[in-house]
């Protein structure tokens, strides 16, 4: 078969941790699976398209394949947002990624939101951990009035419901904001705690029912359709559910151990907490369920009559 070269655009730099542990190995998997019929030319560090422009860059073919963070586009994939509601039932990114892929396969209303592109895989972060600078958070009273950086959307509403003040700060400014006390804490996955060195400026870590965020690896439709059936199948053999789980695990879950190790190295190893079961349920009742209901009623108003069922399925799949 003739050899095809595909452009792959990614926001993060080539030297980044996730680029070496997840992105590059997956690109290699694609090349190997197609038996050399596909060659991938990676463009790291926004050299071909800005992270914010990725959706359009893929849609119009500026890049053939692109890494998409859906937090950039509020309002564009509202049904898929179900996976980023607070207090979901999955505990790892691998599980969350698997759930999202299954939801996508099951519900045409989610597929429709991705009509403009060919979805190769989805992945999610694990539920964010709460990291704080000065005060440990073990119950709802502790978090009252704290200024907490979140990433917009449902997470903002949850923080409000919990009685804290949500803050929106660009990622690169968070280190200084934590250090200078501009914020008291933030929601972050262990990957970010390690990559952005937050462990240097925060003391306390609590596993709480915060929401996760989600990503997709998407491909230009015309380019996809131009590929031979065997090549398509070969690409999907390392994408789809398997690929989703691979990204979730290697982009996020693998960083948990090394992140905790960093925290231990600076002497805060004893400051990693988990909420007691009844306390956790309180957080879900106060900060989770109202946001779920808000999402369901908004979706139903927009004509998604099975919104409640989608939510229940998500929770059920996460527990499996």
């Amino acid at each position, binding site marked *: 078969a003739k050899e095809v070269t595909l452009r792959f655009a990614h926001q993060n730099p080539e030297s980044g941790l996730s680029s070496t542990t997840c992105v590059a190995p997956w690109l290699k998997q694609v090349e190997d699976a197609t038996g050399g019929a596909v060659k991938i030319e990676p463009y790291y560090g926004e*050299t071909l398209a800005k992270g914010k422009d990725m959706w359009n860059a893929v849609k119009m073919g500026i890049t053939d394949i692109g890494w998409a963070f859906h937090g950039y586009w509020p309002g564009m994939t509202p049904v898929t947002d179900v996976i980023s509601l607070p207090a979901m039932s999955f505990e790892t990114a691998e599980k969350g990624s698997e759930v999202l892929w299954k939801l996508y396969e099951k519900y045409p209303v989610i597929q429709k939101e991705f009509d403009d592109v060919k979805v190769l895989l989805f992945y999610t972060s694990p539920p964010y951990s709460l990291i704080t600078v000065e005060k440990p958070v073990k119950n709802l009273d502790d978090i009252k009035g704290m200024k907490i950086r979140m990433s917009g959307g449902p997470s903002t509403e949850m923080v409000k419901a919990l009685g804290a003040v949500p803050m929106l700060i660009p990622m690169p400014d968070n280190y200084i904001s934590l250090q200078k006390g501009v914020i008291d804490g933030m929601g972050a996955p262990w990957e970010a705690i390690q990559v952005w060195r937050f462990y240097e400026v925060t003391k306390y870590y609590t596993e709480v029912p915060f929401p996760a965020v989600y990503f997709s690896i998407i491909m230009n439709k015309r380019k996809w359709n131009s590929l031979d059936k065997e090549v398509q199948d070969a690409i999907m053999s390392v994408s789809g559910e398997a690929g989703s789980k691979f990204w979730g695990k290697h982009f996020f879950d693998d960083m948990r151990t090394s992140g905790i190790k960093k925290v231990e190295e600076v002497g805060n190893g004893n400051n990693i907490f988990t909420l007691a079961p009844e306390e956790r349920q309180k957080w879900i009742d106060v900060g989770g369920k109202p946001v779920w209901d808000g999402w369901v009623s908004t979706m139903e108003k927009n004509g998604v009559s099975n919104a409640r069922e989608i939510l229940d399925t998500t929770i059920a799949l996460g527990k499996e």
Partner: protein
Amino acid sequence: MSPIEAGFLGMFCVLVLLLARMHIGLAMGLIGFLGFAYITGWEPALGLLRTVPYTTFASEGLSVIPLFILMGAFAFEAGMSEDLYAAVHKIFGGLKGGLAMATVAACACFAAISGSSLATAATLGRVAMPEMKKYNYDLGLATGSIAAGGCIGILIPPSVILIIYGILTEQSIGKLFMAGVIPGILEAVFYIITIWLLTRRNPALGPPGPKASTKEKVRAFSRTWEVIVLFTIVIGGLYMGIFTPTEAAGIGAFCALCFAFMRGKMKWLNFKNSLTSTASTTGMLFLIIMGAMMLGYFFSVTRLPFEFASMVAALPINRYAILACIVVVILILGCLMDSLAIVLLTVPVFYPLILELNFDPIWFGIIVVRVTEMGLITPPVGLNVFVLNGITGVPMHTIFRGVTPFLLADILQLILLISLPQISLFLPNLMN
């Protein structure tokens, strides 16, 4: 034609369009668009026209550019530049060539509140030129010291060019600003020494002005406190990590406006003028940035920067020899283009190479800015010279003659900055 050949051809076409008087931003954008279409097809290229303008305009990170320009505009309308000049004038005035030295020193001070070299040269051109004419200064020395001194505007922070460099390379703008402080002061010192040497050899170039008493000096300096406060807030805030660059710019502009009000210099008309002149500069800069972004994506897709970097880095020659070549290329471009365009055009190409060669990226930013500064006063296209010609009416060739000794000083300072990276890196390294 291979993609890499297409990349080189694209660069050549940009220069041709430029010489045919096309706007630099449109020339870069057009070649970026056509080149992208050649490699990827029309639809992706049109996609570039769809996404790049809006993303470039609606950028929180780039909002620091109009805000810093606005700060300088308010400071100018408030008459702060005149007071600055009056103050340094009192110190140097009595010396041979003292007024020219005062001009350079005032440029360095004004640089601390102005983000652009053109604005610095234009402002001091209006303020200092009449004084130097009054004392029968040689027109070459007078205009030369303003044109060269104006360059300091983009080395001492705030600096539009350093902001762009930081955004292109994902380096900390705060650190880049810190890195520019000492080289900027050093540049002023080099220029003052140059003037001293020139007037010692030929005193007729710059006759001494009146001497000022200590009391007069103190009084003149007491009128410059606003500038000092502004610089402290902006640069101090960045250094201490209290502000992000955007916040520093917003607060700086706001404080400059407050000072202008307190001085009674901010009438409705002044306010309006500051805003519209900032809008005009903003429009000019962003059209160039937009075009450069498009051209940059074209270069990316040719893989020219990556291949170029690995190819050159593998050559068996000293890395300083490679750096010297980069400097020469930027100098040549500096003869033709304005400094922002040069940075936007060359940094994406050279930056991977600089990393490959293990040079410090912050230090390289200072070197790039120092070299593009020289482009502002080299013929045939020397924007500072054009601006002064516009303001003072002194013929272009006289001004170009006047800046020649300053260019020699530039080369010496550049060699110093390259051989002693600590001059640039001392302050930013203290920040951690």
